[in-house]
């Protein structure tokens, strides 16, 4: 394989990871549409989903271009099976109660914010463009989720208990966000990608700042989720929840190929 072809293959895999993260979380968030606790929140969650969907569209379109096999954003979103999705496991976790949704959002948005800040300087013009476009949107997402984590954590005894439980439930899935592998190593070396481990410090400062204001603890020290570090999403290994999400997302497209609104 020539150097150019090898870089294109890496770009395909990398754009797919970034795009799958955004797509799967967008799909999860739209499950709240018409079900959120207040009208303003319903609108907010749908807007966050829409931003993520826009990022996913740009990234999957670019993945298709770099692959060079003629696959469109829709082909990649609707015609891949579960093991071909390379999103992190955090974004596929079920919405749970509102506190779980907000913990997941804070953890992911803080990660995406640190990532996009760096990726905006990528040597790859398309990735840099998507990141520079998305970084301010993501800053709003992180603020929104952080505001709720503080309000619920530093709220009533019941809201505190549920917010603390949500942080504990989602925390194990954050470890995977910072795992490097050969792909990230090669792309970071080429100035195209970002080494995930570089994001950890900024992420921890961001998240711990919010949690401390929310009177919440960080990583669970004991209990069943302490020390549990699930991973594998980047290799296509997922929790049992992703299959159901994809079934709902892909059903119409697969049942009626070529259907248009």
């Amino acid at each position, binding site marked *: 394989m020539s150097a150019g072809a090898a870089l294109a293959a890496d770009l395909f895999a990398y754009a797919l990871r970034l795009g799958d993260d955004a797509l799967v979380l967008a799909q999860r968030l739209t499950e709240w549409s018409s079900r959120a606790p207040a009208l*303003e929140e319903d*609108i907010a969650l749908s807007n966050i989903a829409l*931003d993520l969907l*826009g990022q996913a569209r740009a990234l999957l379109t670019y993945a298709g271009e770099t692959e060079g096999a003629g696959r469109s954003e829709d082909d990649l979103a609707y015609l891949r099976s579960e093991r071909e999705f390379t999103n992190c496991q955090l974004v596929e976790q079920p919405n749970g109660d509102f506190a779980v949704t907000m913990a997941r959002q804070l953890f992911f948005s803080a990660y995406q914010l640190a990532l996009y800040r760096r990726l905006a300087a990528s040597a790859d013009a398309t990735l840099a463009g998507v990141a520079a*476009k998305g970084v301010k*949107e993501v800053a*709003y997402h992180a603020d*929104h989720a952080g505001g709720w984590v503080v309000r619920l954590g530093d709220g009533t005894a019941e809201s505190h208990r549920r917010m603390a439980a949500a942080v504990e439930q989602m925390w194990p899935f954050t470890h995977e966000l910072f795992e490097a592998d050969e792909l990230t190593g090669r792309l970071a070396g080429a100035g195209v990608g970002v080494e995930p481990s570089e994001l950890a410090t900024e992420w921890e400062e961001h998240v711990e700042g919010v949690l401390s204001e929310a009177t919440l603890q960080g990583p669970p020290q004991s209990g069943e989720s302490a020390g549990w570090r699930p991973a594998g999403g980047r290799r296509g290994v997922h929790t049992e929840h992703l299959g159901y999400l994809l079934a709902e997302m892909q059903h119409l497209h697969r049942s009626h190929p070529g259907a248009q609104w």
Partner: protein
Amino acid sequence: MVSLGPVESAVREALAEVTDPELPVLTIEDLGVLRDVTVDQDGRVEVTITPTYSGCPAMDVIRGDVERVLAGHGWDNAVVRTVLSPAWTTGWMSDEGRRKLAEFGIAPPGPVAVDLVRCPRCGSAETRLVSRFGSTPCKALRACRRCLEPFEHFKPL
């Protein structure tokens, strides 16, 4: 500033008919969504647009409207290209666009002070944020403490 050829100017003039479907008082030029108009030596028109937000659903409509308006003026082979870089910010909105927004009852994005948002109805600076997210990705919900009216704010990006 490169001076525009007569065809480019005519295309831009025609595109004044294309407004944002979610903010119908603003043309795509007012909004800063219209990035460029070029005409090659064969007379083929290329229009470059950029989204305000990554997922802005108005982009598909705007693309269709640009093609339709240009076809109506005889440029039926126009190509509409979407670019992300440099990223759109509220700095791309024209002063004329800001004035039209305020008249329409939507608080425009301020050039500097992010926290000072005046009520578009009574002009009071005593307003509060209701939600960072509104009816479209580009707007937040606010309310005026003086006249008590809720209003939308085109949020700075």
